């Protein structure tokens, strides 16, 4: 199978504290991959590390065999909701339009084509009526869909989402999952960070269990088998407690 992302020996420090310890794992293309681990286990750090958002101490990452710099324009990143300032004076439309900014032509303004794409994606996530709302004035599920729309507007091949199911209603969760599945079915690769194996796990094709180190990875059915859970024992304890 084609590898979408190959991570080798990734090690990340925040000053003196080790957040990721020699993680080597690969992510298959055309699948929904879940990255699972308790709070503080370095899931967000892993995403930020592979996307070059934070400096890494050691390790290499490649995307479909090429470097991050070459592949960057095909990656969409949905950050964790805690990192967003919901009082920021920005409207739904402006958030989604961010997906159309390109580094190579930073002087450009939004073109008509961009506007069209923004409109389309807002329709896909059923937020057309909220275009001019300030983002703080939406429900949690709507907010998460705004960010999904931004990722869709990027027309990316690889979509990376950090805890998209935290603090949202069932309906939004369903609609996000169905969009994600559509993306997968059209050949895109989706990576979703989540903090436990319940609820949404059944939607993942493959999982990566993480707790500073790589604990296990593979198809969801295999990971759920007892020996693997035993292997990851310390961690399943934590997972169950959640």
């Amino acid at each position: 199978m084609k590898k979408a992302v190959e991570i080798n020996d990734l090690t990340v420090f925040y000053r003196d504290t080790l957040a990721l310890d020699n993680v080597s794992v690969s992510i298959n293309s055309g699948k929904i991959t879940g990255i699972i681990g308790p709070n503080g286990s370095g899931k967000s750090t892993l995403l930020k590390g592979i996307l070059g958002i934070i400096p890494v101490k050691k390790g290499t990452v490649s995307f479909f065999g090429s470097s991050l710099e070459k592949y960057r324009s095909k990656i969409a990143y949905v950050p964790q909701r805690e990192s967003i300032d919901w009082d920021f004076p920005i409207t739904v439309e402006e958030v989604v339009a961010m997906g159309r900014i390109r580094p190579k032509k930073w002087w450009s303004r939004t073109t008509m084509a961009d506007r069209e794409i923004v409109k389309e994606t807002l329709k896909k996530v059923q937020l057309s009526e909220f275009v001019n709302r300030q983002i703080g004035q939406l429900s949690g599920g709507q907010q998460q869909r705004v960010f999904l729309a931004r990722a869709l507007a990027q027309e990316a091949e690889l979509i990376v989402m950090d805890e998209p199911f935290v603090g949202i209603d069932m309906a939004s969760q369903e609609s996000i999952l169905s969009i994600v599945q559509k993306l997968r079915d059209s050949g895109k690769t989706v990576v979703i960070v989540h903090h436990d194996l319940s609820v949404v796990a059944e939607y993942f094709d493959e999982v990566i269990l993480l707790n500073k180190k790589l604990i296990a990875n593979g198809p969801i059915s295999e990971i759920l088998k007892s020996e693997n859970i035993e292997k990851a024992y310390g961690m399943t304890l934590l997972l169950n407690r959640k």
Partner: protein
Amino acid sequence: MDLSIWIVFIGTALIGISAALVGTFTFLQKKSLIGDAISHSILPGIVLAYMISGQRNTLILMLGAFFSGWLATQQISWLQRKTKLKSDTIVAATLSIFFALGLAMLSYIQGRPDDGQAGLSDFLFGKIAALNIEDLYLFATVSALIIAVTFFRYRVMFSFAFNKEFMISKGFSLRWNDFILNSMTILVVAMGVQAVGVVLMSALLIIPVLTARMLTYQLRSLITLSLIFGTGSSLAGSYISILGKNIPTGPCIIMVLSMCAISVALLLRVPFKIKK
């Protein structure tokens, strides 16, 4: 006579416009207090430029100001990388070191018998009436530069302020963005201290956008309103300070600005978040 009044008004308007523009983005970046640090930090640069050149030439003083303002931002980011101190501590430490250095140097040249040093104390509280026509050309150039950069980069700067991790993931350079914003802040401050002085310059950056923010959450109107508040108050403030003989310009402008902010707050009464 007539001409000098015009110079004052055009100069103040230029300062008001540039400060409101740059202030909007420092506000969005939540870096308003870095503006404060920069405005205190340019004092040693101004004094040093005066000591070396021996004259009060606005261009030379602005170069000095730019240099020390730039050093201060470098020190801030160096300390952020090198220590575990929180950013408010770092900002305050940088601010006080540079400002103390500036005051020490100021007291050194004031101890010397040569003239002209009185003009430097104006930088502490600002004295807009000291502007001449050459300064105006310089101000116009700097303002044009700031307006141009804002015009071309506002989307990127705005997006960075909202969600920098996303922008980095798209391949934009955080350092470059910070550099541009810092440079614009330093330029505005170097220009604005002539009107409002080192101590109150940060208000000219903060208050217009803060007032505008109470009224709107949309970027376009935010920029427009803060331009209106910033420019209007600067003009009104400097007019008042010219009318009253002994009143320093800086505090005058800041009072007008604050009054605007307070009246907007009172008029709205209901906090803006609660409005639908």
